[in-house]
């Protein structure tokens, strides 16, 4: 045991998960030596109390009766046509998140939606979704959603009815004929019906004022495009047409318009086919999904990115003039950093220019208008407009994600002329700059009402709050960026009598029409020649197909699109920013879990680890290694950020690849009125994370320079999953000595080398594998999976999809800190390269369904056994909780129910949440081990279905939940016994390898090595040669 603190000999991993692991620090060795991380005792019950409770439960069990309790079967009186009890039904619908539409198919069982999938025929998704859409069903059944119309009178909230509200509203409406003194505030929406209602209301009430407000706005994009094209526009990327992509802090697969589709299009170019293979450069401050998917990533502080764009524009001007670029990266007195920048710039410029017409530049929303204007000019110069990028005019103010409106709204409120205000699906009180004191201004208004899913911060400032219908409860419509008309159908009647935005607005126009009438009217007006059958088809497919629709893509720059770029832009960029003492730049970003804060009460999303920081339950100040060294900070140290308007204390997460003197923090946390999950101050439930909107002011929205930062003398533990499931020092040492790389990468050049065929499997040499046990034989199906690391973008939608499909519980931050998260699939994130500028690899890891499964060999009660089709079946009822299997699992994919995590649902108030469970999967109780089953319920049901129809299974008919959701199509599942199946073909690929196959566990999941497509000049600097192949195993 005394050796525990010593350094691990020769531990020099090529792929590492944390900085501590790379540096082999004492903290890391201490961490792996501990049984319980953080040195926590198992708090809660004392031994004596536990014995008392156990004795009591045994006694009760004895008296609980000898037969199952009497249960009733309550059939329909009139069964609806087509409804078969217990049989899932699927309907098309769509989710509109601030104007970003994802076409969906909802799976409903007995009338309740339990799972959402991407609509395979919808161009916005083609079958995939993001994590938000997956978590939407949990939001639907959230017990914290507001249930009553409430009104504030004399400082007290009282329950009222919808009729009370409409009566009060009618009184106010009758008082005006022009809408004077009326203000409507909404979130951005693509819904043609909502937009039509607004226009109708504007005609009737010309003096009413309308504001659209989105805290995560793209104002700078639209201002930049106005400068470039003369009209406000929105860029949409069509990455399957792109050969070279430059992402300037642009999160192509999370924030950009059509992000789900973008992931599919991008992944299609990453399969190692040299004709298609794209090259992605990322120049960014934070870690975006584009950055972690990139072939080359250059970390730059916020200020340096515009310098880079200037330099790039100059380089491209030089190239366009037919000249070649000067040799800027070979001066002997250059620092290595400057040389790298120079080479990077040159490589990007030449690459973009060489592939003009098939190259594209994208910029993140927070970058200034001048950057977006420059990017538009560059894209024009690259002849990419209408090809890999289209700029589409933003014509309707409601579809624009804007926050500029807030300034005008504030002025209006201060002026005191507002008599009536209506907030619909927006929460500005939470996200507006504090100095505006919006809540006080709203409280002064005589009539104020808020329509929302929750009684949130804005609701509490109003006089009325009306529960909003979830999008799965209400009729609506949506329109994608390319103009596809999409219908939103309700899957269930409003659980709490909520009303949609359409229903609220229709009160002002024609109270006799319901939302469905309005939507149908919109459809008819839009397609005057449509028949009733067209509407039926639109409902069935979720969208209306139009032939030969042309995109109104902008192609010509306006005359104003000229800008003087300093001639020395290149030199200035290469030289870099001068250090500015103890101040840092702070960048506020959208959060992968809670977006702008609206998902703060969604426990699935809260517990879902950030793709790169691996943080759950809260936000943190993400800083790079140099900054951490300068501040003497480690993970969990608390720092204080001071700007003129606010002071914030935040825990630190040190992440390699964040530029120096930069702090990246996500928005959306610190909600004071989110609910029991995200924080509810009035019930003494502390907010999760820190509200970073507090930094915002009228002047700055995303970037704050010259922020004073100090380290505070305290620590805050972080619920991060990045170091979880490490093994002890013996294991780590063994890993170095005996095992091959868990993630494997290959360059395109090596993959396509005609002289030496590549084989990912042969990267690792091992002695011949002989089994101790007799091997299994199969005469039927052999299920297997293939995960293409080259396609995986690390978005993590699969994690939430799996949680929704398999009834996986949420454990909370305290349990996550003890490595007890329950996700059946995790996305390991590895860094490789230098801590200053690493590259990442994402690797989804679920149960590999080993044929020689180590877990099966140690279970004393045969609770995990091999099935005839090669699955490791987990029999919950046999499990006695020894946890031997989890111990013996080399992949660390088994999860143990340390507690009865569904206990909260016994509370009658929370009962509604039981409706989210998938009835096809058993709810596991305390003391039981669980793990990925390859979605065995889907396998069984598809088999039965096929047998009932007396036909063989079709390849691709069974999709696991992770496979179905994957926007990049990185996961393929199927029958290995069928040599023509997609998965069997992939297993034959020369990129396929079994993780830890050298242990002879014979994993059923094979990974496909990630293909990198580096630029030769950069490869020479960045990419270390792969270490020599590993020695023969012991």
């Amino acid at each position, binding site marked *: 045991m005394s050796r525990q603190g010593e350094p691990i000999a020769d531990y020099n991993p090529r792929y590492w998960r944390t900085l501590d692991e790379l540096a082999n620090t004492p903290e890391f060795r201490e961490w792996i030596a501990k049984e319980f991380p953080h040195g926590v005792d198992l708090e809660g019950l004392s031994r004596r109390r536990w014995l008392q409770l156990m004795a009591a439960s045994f006694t009760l069990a004895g008296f609980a009766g*000898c*037969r*199952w309790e*009497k*249960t*009733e*079967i*309550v*059939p*329909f*009186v*009139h*069964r609806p046509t087509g409804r*078969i*009890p*217990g*049989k899932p039904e699927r309907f098309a619908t769509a989710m509109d998140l601030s104007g970003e539409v994802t076409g969906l198919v909802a799976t409903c069982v007995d009338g309740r939606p339990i799972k959402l999938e991407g609509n395979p025929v919808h161009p916005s998704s083609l079958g995939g979704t993001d994590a938000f859409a997956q978590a939407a069903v949990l939001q639907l059944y959230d017990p914290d959603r507001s249930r009553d119309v409430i009104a504030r009178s004399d400082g007290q909230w009282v329950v009222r009815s919808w009729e009370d509200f409409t009566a009060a509203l009618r009184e106010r409406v009758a008082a005006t004929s022009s809408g004077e003194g009326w203000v409507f505030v909404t979130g951005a929406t693509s819904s043609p019906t909502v937009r039509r209602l607004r226009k109708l209301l504007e005609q009737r009430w010309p003096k009413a004022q309308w504001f659209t407000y989105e805290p995560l706005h793209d104002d700078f994009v639209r201002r930049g495009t106005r400068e470039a094209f003369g009209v406000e526009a929105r860029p949409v990327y069509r990455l399957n047409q792109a050969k070279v992509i430059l992402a300037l802090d642009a999160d192509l697969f999370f924030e950009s318009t059509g992000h789900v589709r973008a992931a599919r299009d991008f992944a299609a170019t990453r399969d190692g086919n040299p004709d298609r293979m794209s090259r992605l450069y990322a120049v960014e401050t934070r870690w975006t999904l584009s950055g972690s998917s990139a072939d080359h990533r250059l970390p730059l502080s916020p200020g340096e990115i515009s310098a880079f764009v200037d330099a790039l524009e100059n380089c491209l001007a030089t190239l366009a003039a037919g000249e070649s670029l000067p040799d800027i990266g070979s001066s002997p007195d250059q620092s290595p950093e400057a040389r790298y920048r120079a080479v990077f710039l040159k490589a990007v410029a030449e690459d973009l220019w060489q592939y003009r017409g098939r190259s594209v530049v994208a910029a993140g929303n927070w970058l200034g208008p001048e950057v977006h204007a420059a990017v538009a000019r560059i894209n024009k110069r690259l002849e990419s407009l209408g090809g890999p990028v289209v700029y589409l005019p933003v014509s309707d103010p409601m579809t624009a994600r804007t926050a500029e409106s807030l300034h005008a709204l504030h002025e209006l409120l201060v002026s005191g002329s507002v008599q009536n205000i209506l907030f619909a699906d927006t929460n500005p009180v939470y996200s507006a700059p504090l100095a505006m004191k919006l809540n006080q201004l709203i409280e002064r208004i005589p009539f104020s009402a808020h329509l929302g899913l929750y009684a949130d911060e804005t609701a509490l400032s109003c006089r009325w709050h009306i529960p909003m219908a979830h999008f799965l409860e209400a009729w609506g419509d949506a329109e994608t960026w390319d103009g596809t008309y999409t219908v939103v159908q309700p899957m269930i009647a409003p659980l709490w009598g909520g009303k949609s935005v359409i229903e609220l607005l229709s009160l002002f126009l024609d109270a006799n029409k319901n939302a469905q009438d309005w939507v149908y009217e919109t459809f008819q007006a839009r397609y005057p020649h449509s028949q009733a059958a067209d509407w039926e088809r639109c409902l069935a497919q979720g969208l209306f197909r139009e032939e030969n629709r042309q995109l109104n893509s902008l192609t010509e720059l306006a005359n104003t699109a000229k800008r003087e770029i300093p001639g020395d832009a290149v030199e200035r960029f290469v030289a870099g920013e001068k250090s500015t003492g103890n101040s840092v730049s702070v960048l506020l970003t959208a959060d992968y879990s809670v977006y702008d804060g609206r998902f703060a009460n969604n426990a699935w999303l809260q517990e879902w680890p950030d793709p790169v920081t691996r943080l759950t339950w809260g936000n943190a100040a993400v800083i790079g290694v140099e900054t951490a060294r300068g501040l003497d900070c480690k993970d969990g140290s608390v720092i204080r950020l001071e700007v003129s308007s606010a002071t914030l204390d935040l825990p630190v997460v040190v992440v390699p690849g964040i530029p120096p003197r930069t702090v990246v923090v996500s928005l959306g946390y610190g909600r004071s009125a989110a609910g029991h999950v995200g924080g509810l101050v009035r019930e003494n439930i502390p907010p999760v994370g820190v509200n970073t909107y507090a930094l915002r002011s009228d002047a700055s929205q995303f970037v704050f320079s010259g922020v004073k930062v100090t380290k505070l003398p305290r620590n805050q533990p972080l619920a991060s999953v990045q170091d979880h499931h490490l093994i002890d020092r013996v294991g780590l040492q063994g890993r170095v000595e005996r095992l091959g790389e868990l993630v494997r990468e290959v360059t395109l050049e090596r993959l396509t080398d005609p002289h030496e065929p590549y084989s990912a499997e042969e990267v690792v040499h091992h002695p011949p594998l002989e089994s101790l046990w007799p091997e299994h034989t199969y005469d*039927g199906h052999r299920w297997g999976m293939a995960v293409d690391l080259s396609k995986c973008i690390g978005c993590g939608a699969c994690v939430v999809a799996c949680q929704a499909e398999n009834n996986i519980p949420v454990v909370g931050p305290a349990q996550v800190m003890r490595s007890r998260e329950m996700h059946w699939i995790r996305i390991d994130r590895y860094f490789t390269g230098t801590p200053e500028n690493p590259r990442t690899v994402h690797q989804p890891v679920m149960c590999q369904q080993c044929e020689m499964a180590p877990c099966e060999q140690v279970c004393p009660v045969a609770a995990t*056994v*091999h*099935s*005839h*089709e090669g*699955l490791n*079946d987990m*029999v*919950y*009822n046999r499990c006695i909780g020894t946890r031997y299997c989890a111990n013996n699992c080399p992949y660390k994919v088994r999860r143990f129910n340390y507690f009865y995590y569904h206990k909260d649902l016994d509370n009658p108030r929370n009962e509604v949440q039981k409706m989210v469970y998938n009835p*096809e*999967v*058993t709810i596991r109780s305390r003391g039981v081990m669980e793990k990925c*089953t390859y979605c*065995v*319920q889907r396998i*069984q049901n598809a088999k*039965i279905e096929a*047998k*009932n129809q007396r036909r063989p299974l079709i390849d691709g008919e069974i999709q696991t939940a992770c496979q179905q959701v994957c926007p990049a199509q990185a996961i393929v599942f199927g029958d290995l016994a069928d040599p023509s199946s997609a998965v069997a073909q992939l297993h034959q690929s020369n990129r396929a390898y079994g993780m830890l196959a050298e242990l002879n566990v014979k994993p059923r999941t094979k990974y496909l090595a990630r293909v990198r497509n580096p630029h030769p000049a950069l490869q020479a600097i960045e990419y270390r040669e792969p270490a020599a192949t590993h020695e023969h195993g012991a």
Partner: protein
Amino acid sequence: MFKPYLPLWFDRARPIFGALLLFLPLYLLGVAWFAADPQTIDIGYSPAQPVPFSHALHAGELGLDCRYCHTTVEKAAHAAIPSTEICMNCHDRIAANSPKLALVRESYATGQPIPWVRVHDLPDFVYFDHSAHVNRGVSCVECHDRVDRMDRVYQAKTLRMGWCLECHRNPEQHLRPQDQITNLAWQAGSPEEQQRIGEELRRKNNIQPSTSCSTCHR
């Protein structure tokens, strides 16, 4: 003189007491074992139903096919209990005023469903699929017995896992031609003939019942 506290026979009987004490736990265990056995507690379970519906009358005497009411049995995991509407298909004319049917009429008029009591109840971690069985030559009678002779339905089979597995391991004795699935009275001429029919059907329909855990437990 020494006087014993207890009578002398007690001393003599001590070994017997000892032996009894020794066997007591075994005895209790035995009682619990047999008392908790499905054979004891489940077989014959016959709860009173809100409407005194007689399968013996409808399925037996009148010869209604099982699928007339249990419409989903070939399509879904559940053999759904019929909706009130199905009862009223006939009973708006037949026995339209019978007091026994008061609840059915009331349900039809008010829309309030009839709360039937579940007889055959598998644990929640068992995923049994009716369609997978009745489409593959397994008759209703194999699990539900002669419902067509039951006035009030009772559980006739244990439905324990070992009982399921018996059939999954040797299905030949339990398969019959597809057109006889709901004919509860059907029987092969002899066990040998049943074996022959079973083997033939098994080959023809490729019936390979799985005994893997995940077949029924997920």
